[in-house]
């Protein structure tokens, strides 16, 4: 579904490449999370998967980027929209501002794609129920909380039925309630298995909870790729500017203090930690 081959990209005024020799294959329906320090290239990678690198940002891109069979660098943004969706961290900037109700806001993308009105209405009802906003369909988008606005942004993109949805730190500006609301939607997305989900995230305990696969970026390079249980418990995380969850840290400290077996696999979630310490 997603294939990158030897992708190297530099921003127009960049001194060093933002992405170097990146090769990655993500099968359809997978939920893949990318983690890494700020500046490692997570946002650039998300922009590349959505076609905004190089179309929007210019710069030099080499290598192949193919998503759902479309060669992104050779396609126009209009061709890409509808196949790949992008959600980023600032909920306010994703509201078009040109529509006065939640329902009409969600319709915006479908209108641009010339979807017939009857089909539009049913798709909108369905997606609002999926993200839990059905009671707010007539509210103004600006009268929603941050978490609700972010769910609106996700709904507005999902309603277009993209094959791939890319989310760039969607909860970084949200409070815990808003974060939980968004992660619940993402968990349901992962379970539904229709779309391929690519998520850049700093909150490792959430990544541990439902990503199928975790990749690590460091200075523009792909340095690790595997299951959450392996990657998030790896001792290499610190080297890449990341800090494991406190569950993992506590387990490691317990092993160092001789309270637990040095061979036991380290936990990355609360449930695993309870098991580890019991």
């Amino acid at each position, binding site marked *: 579904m997603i294939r990158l081959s030897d992708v190297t990209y530099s921003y127009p005024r960049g001194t060093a490449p933002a992405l170097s020799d990146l090769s990655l294959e993500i099968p359809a329906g997978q939920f893949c999370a990318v983690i890494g320090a700020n500046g490692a290239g997570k946002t650039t990678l998300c922009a590349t998967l959505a076609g*905004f690198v190089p179309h*929007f940002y210019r710069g030099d891109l080499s290598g192949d980027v193919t998503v759902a069979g479309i060669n992104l660098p050779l396609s126009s943004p209009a061709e890409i929209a509808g196949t790949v969706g992008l959600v980023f961290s600032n909920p306010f900037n994703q509201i078009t501002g*040109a529509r006065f109700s939640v329902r009409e806001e969600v319709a915006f993308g479908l209108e641009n794609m010339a979807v017939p*009105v009857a089909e539009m209405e049913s798709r909108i009802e369905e997606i609002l129920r999926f993200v839990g906003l059905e009671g707010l369909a007539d509210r103004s988008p600006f009268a929603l909380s941050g978490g609700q606005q972010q769910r609106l942004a996700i709904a507005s993109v999902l309603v277009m039925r993209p094959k791939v949805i890319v989310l760039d730190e969607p909860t970084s500006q949200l409070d815990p309630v808003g974060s939980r609301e968004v992660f619940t939607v993402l968990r349901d997305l992962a379970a539904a298995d229709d779309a391929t989900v690519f998520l850049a995230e700093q909150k490792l305990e959430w990544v541990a909870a439902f990503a199928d696969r975790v990749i690590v970026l460091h200075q523009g390079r792909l340095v690790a790729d595997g299951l959450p249980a392996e990657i998030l418990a790896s001792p290499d995380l610190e080297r890449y500017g990341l800090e494991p969850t406190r569950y993992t840290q506590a387990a490691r400290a317990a092993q160092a203090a001789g309270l637990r077996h040095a061979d036991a696999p380290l936990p990355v979630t609360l449930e695993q930690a309870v098991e580890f310490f019991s």
Partner: protein
Amino acid sequence: MSGRYGLYVERQTEIHRLHPLTKLVYVLACLLVGWLIPGAWSPYFVLLIGIVPVALAGGVLPQVFRNTVKTVAPFALSLFIIQGLFWTGGTVVQQLGPFSLKAEGLWFAVRGTGRILVAVSGFLFLNYTTRSDELMLALSQKGLPNSISYVVLSTIQIVPRFQQKANTILDAQRSRGLETEGSFLVRTRALLPMVLPLLLGSIVDIDERAIALEVRAFGRQGPRTSLLTLRDTAGQRGARWLMALAVVVVIGWRLWLWLAPRFAA
């Protein structure tokens, strides 16, 4: 830009139910007719016969009246003073010390004020009785580019946020010791540091907004559908043509009035 839909005042009148273009054409017709028919009092005639009844029928006459007067009063005052006192030549109506009040100047001001009144009250009537998104949709259906429609609508909703942002920026600078209370000079100087954050912050946001729009296929060429539907009737369509025709007739008449003496001589 107070309410959720901008200036729109929510009511259930026949006027509100009219197609947006009908109201737009009507207001433009009033404007042109009031402008073109000769005589200093003709704009007031149009105001009374054309604007007041429809505003009344739309249940927005008090708002139209109040806000028209508020907007036009300062302009009208300066018009009367400047044209009345500084009209070159002409008949003196009243001597006020070194200044002479001229009749022609006053009549000019009367006519000018009348035209502005028609324009402002017409604009307000249109906006109070028509949702801006419905008006933009109607215009898009007639060929208005989507980018213009987007700019108009998003401005209505985003400008109030801009004001909030400006206040927050000012608070942030006061919290760093920028004095804003005191003399006029102090307060004006305090505004200078605000320009950069307001501008640059907005530019940073514009990048993200543009991307968000592209993601929603805004850049796609070709026809679009709309969740919103507009009710139009054959009667209204006919009325719009008639109004356009009436304007053409008035333009023709005015041209004839202007040209005829040259042919006669």
